[in-house]
């Protein structure tokens, strides 16, 4: 009599294992045999960074021109009032650098500073995001996946630079719908947005829109490469960063 319980269990076990292997095999075989790669044109770096020469781009008009270039590329709405969405905008010295000075030189007192997301090395917004909608790419860019953003605004509370804007209302109501950039999406009501260092343009081999529009006032490049143009500019000028004491290590430098 071979039909012992032991033999039955062996047979059942083997059958179950066989079914597992077969189904796993069919799942693998069902894959399409496709691969992914990055574009040949894409600009790459270990740590993207920017230097802003505030002597060259130091007026409201000059910075508004940069904002216009950026906002038209990324379909950023212009909403009147306190609920506007901004990727790059102009502020005064005290607001930008938290260093009030009662007896400042007049030209510096009147100068405007272009501020944007600093793409920090240790970004506090990324640490607090509960859905990983905002994340740090290996090249240092702090990017956002708007599909995941739930609009909790923790990142806005965490960002010491006020670089993030919330879409309090449907942004399309305030966009010029006839002149949208059709290769970039808009956003929807209820998500946070900010400057993305033009990851979309870098992937196409283009430098950021504000740098392109700045006529040399803004320099963009790889901070980790000693031969890059940003490093050359940083070597030749005295530069400061916004709120360095907070330890977020901003990637945007200002020539004063």
């Amino acid at each position, binding site marked *: 009599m071979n039909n012992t319980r032991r033999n039955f269990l062996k047979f059942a076990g083997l059958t179950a294992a066989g079914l597992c292997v077969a189904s796993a095999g069919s799942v693998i075989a069902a894959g399409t045999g496709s691969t992914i790669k990055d574009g040949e044109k894409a600009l790459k770096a270990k740590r993207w960074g920017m230097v802003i020469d505030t002597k060259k781009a130091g007026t409201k008009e000059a910075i508004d021109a940069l904002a216009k270039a950026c906002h038209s590329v990324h379909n950023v709405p212009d909403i009147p009032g306190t609920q506007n969405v901004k990727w790059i905008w102009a502020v005064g010295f005290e607001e930008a650098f938290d260093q009030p000075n009662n007896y400042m030189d007049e030209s510096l007192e009147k100068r405007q500073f272009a501020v944007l997301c600093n793409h920090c090395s240790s970004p506090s917004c990324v640490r607090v995001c509960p859905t990983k909608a905002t994340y740090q790419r290996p090249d240092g860019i702090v990017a956002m996946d708007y599909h995941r953003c739930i609009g909790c605004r923790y990142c806005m509370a965490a960002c010491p630079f006020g670089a993030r804007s919330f879409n309090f209302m449907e942004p399309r109501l305030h966009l010029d719908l*006839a002149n949208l950039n059709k290769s970039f999406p808009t956003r929807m009501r209820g998500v946070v947005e900010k400057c993305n260092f033009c990851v979309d343009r870098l992937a196409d081999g283009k430098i950021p829109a504000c740098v392109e529009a700045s006529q040399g006032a803004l320099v963009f490049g790889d901070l980790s490469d000693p031969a890059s143009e940003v490093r050359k500019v940083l070597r030749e000028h005295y530069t400061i960063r916004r709120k360095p004491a907070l330890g977020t290590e901003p990637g945007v430098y200002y020539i004063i």
Partner: protein
Amino acid sequence: MKLYNGGKIITGLVIFLGIFLAPLAYNAGKAAYSQPKLKLPENEKECVESKEFMRTKHMQLLNEWRDYALRDGQRFYVNSKGKEFEMSLQKTCMKCHTNKAEFCDKCHNDASVTPYCWDCHIQPEGLKK
């Protein structure tokens, strides 16, 4: 054998069956469901993957494309035949499928699904107030 409360039970059963089978009776004689006729691109015969794959799995493909492009910075997809595509809804898909109303919406409406793609992505027809 005697059926207690037989009248009530049988009446109840008849009413129940009547309601239960009403949808069948209502649809009897009507044409069976047929897949909507889509407006296919004129210049391009082959999609990113086979027609069957795209029909059943385009949503998974788009989700993967999003994660590759945004998170991994890998923006090109080489399909099983070796052809290269940029992973972008607006720059790749909608370049061939130039009409959302004639393509996307037809099946989505039939299947009663409302994907949120177009809350942010711009349809090729453009946006109107």
